[in-house]
């Protein structure tokens, strides 16, 4: 039950893009074509899952220790540490993918290093730390947050592909109408509030 709540919460109710407003940059940047949105979504799910697991493991196990009976609490280092871990993790994955699975490497392409410093990935790690998730919970949360991001991105990309053929007033063409659409999409997702 707890895991179900975590899953639905991360995908729909507290959607990373549409209700937490994290990861807006790729949401607007790569949502012009469904193809690129797919690549980005795959990369985000991949990185978020692994980053959540790795950061939760480090946060829960290595940031508090006692020396000579006195406790050292390094919780204030979390942001710095998370960035360091996420960045090197992505780098590592990229090196491995290039060798082990060139197909996947090509599919994720430039999106992999692009999201290294994305706030959605760091956000997932910070939320895990704040909510004190176990490593398993953190992994599920990370994966589902990634799926939530992918859902929002794909919905938005398909909307934008259609918008391209629409004929809005001149002042609204391009980014303005895209932002209005994003707002309406976020309002629609607000309907999930209270689900869990």
């Amino acid at each position, binding site marked *: 039950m707890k895991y179900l709540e975590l899953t639905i919460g991360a995908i729909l109710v507290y959607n990373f893009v549409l209700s937490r407003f994290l990861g807006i940059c790729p949401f607007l940047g790569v949502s012009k074509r469904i193809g690129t949105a797919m690549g980005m979504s795959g990369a985000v799910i991949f990185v978020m899952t692994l980053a959540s697991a790795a950061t939760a493991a480090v946060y*829960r196990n290595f*940031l*508090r220790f006692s*020396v000579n*009976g006195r406790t*050292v609490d390094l919780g204030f*280092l979390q942001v710095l540490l998370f960035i360091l871990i996420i960045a090197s993790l992505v780098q590592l994955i990229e*090196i491995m993918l290039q060798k082990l699975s060139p197909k996947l490497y090509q599919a994720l392409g430039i999106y992999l290093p692009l999201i290294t410093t994305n706030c959605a990935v760091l956000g997932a790690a910070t939320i895990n730390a704040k909510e*004190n998730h176990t490593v398993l919970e953190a992994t599920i949360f990370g994966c589902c947050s990634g799926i939530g991001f992918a859902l929002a991105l794909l919905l938005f990309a398909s909307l934008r592909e259609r918008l391209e053929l629409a004929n809005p007033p001149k002042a609204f063409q391009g980014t303005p109408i895209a932002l209005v659409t994003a707002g309406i999409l976020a309002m629609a997702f607000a309907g999930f509030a209270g689900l869990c």
Partner: protein
Amino acid sequence: MNLISAAAPLSVPASGAEILLWAGVVMASLGVVLGAVIGIFAKYFRVRSDARVELILELLPGANCGGCGQAGCADFAKSVVEGRNAPSKCPVSSREQKSAIARALGIEEEAGFQRRALVRCGGDLHHSAWLLNYNGVLDCASAALVSGGPKGCSYGCLGMGNCARKCPFGAIEIVDHIALVHPELCVGCGLCIAACPRHCIALVPAAATTHVYCNSPEKGIDKRKNCQVGCIGCRKCERTVPGKFTVEGNLARVNYELAPEELPTDADAVAVKCPTHALLSEQAHFRIEQNEEIR
């Protein structure tokens, strides 16, 4: 030193100086460990790539237009190195760039010549008949489906800009419902040709500056009903400047197969003085379409 879970309550906290020291130790050691791990992985998982591919990639324009038939410049560079493609297949590179690539690989360069896109239609808003009031999406393919398109002529440019949207170089402009190719921006990749549902765009030698701006094979009298500037097949161009133009059926065309120096010049266009203004020099066509001159 004992590790405690983050969930456990704090007992006696350490002093500020101690925490600062440990923070430095943790960050430094983590940095060293992660750096070492990445270094080791980079060594063991290194992918050996052909250095020549990257060299060629640097020499290519990097527009990834796909005009060569490969999926982007990286793919093209690979195919050139492997000998599956000639450097001249890249429609975007200049002649100097192509010979630089050939020299880098030590292969014979092939004489290719630059091409440009040409929209073979001059029937803009002011010169062609409109049969219906089209209110659908601004897309040539959709417009062409509605009883043959809004314009009377079913061979000419629809002017909804499918080609302009497709062009990765921003070389096509839509003025008064007709597509205009800016020759200084066009590189001749040919992506616009596939985008046009009317097939009225063609690749022509870049050296040609005089063209027939009509694509309709209909009879002159039928064309005239729909468009004031269609070629009526009067053969005046064929007679005035022999050898440079051919009239096939009811449509004149420039003999683009001629050597660059034999192609019709701007002076030839003036000499012909095409009665419907279908045959024009590129500059004259531009001045008219941009409303600087009246036909």
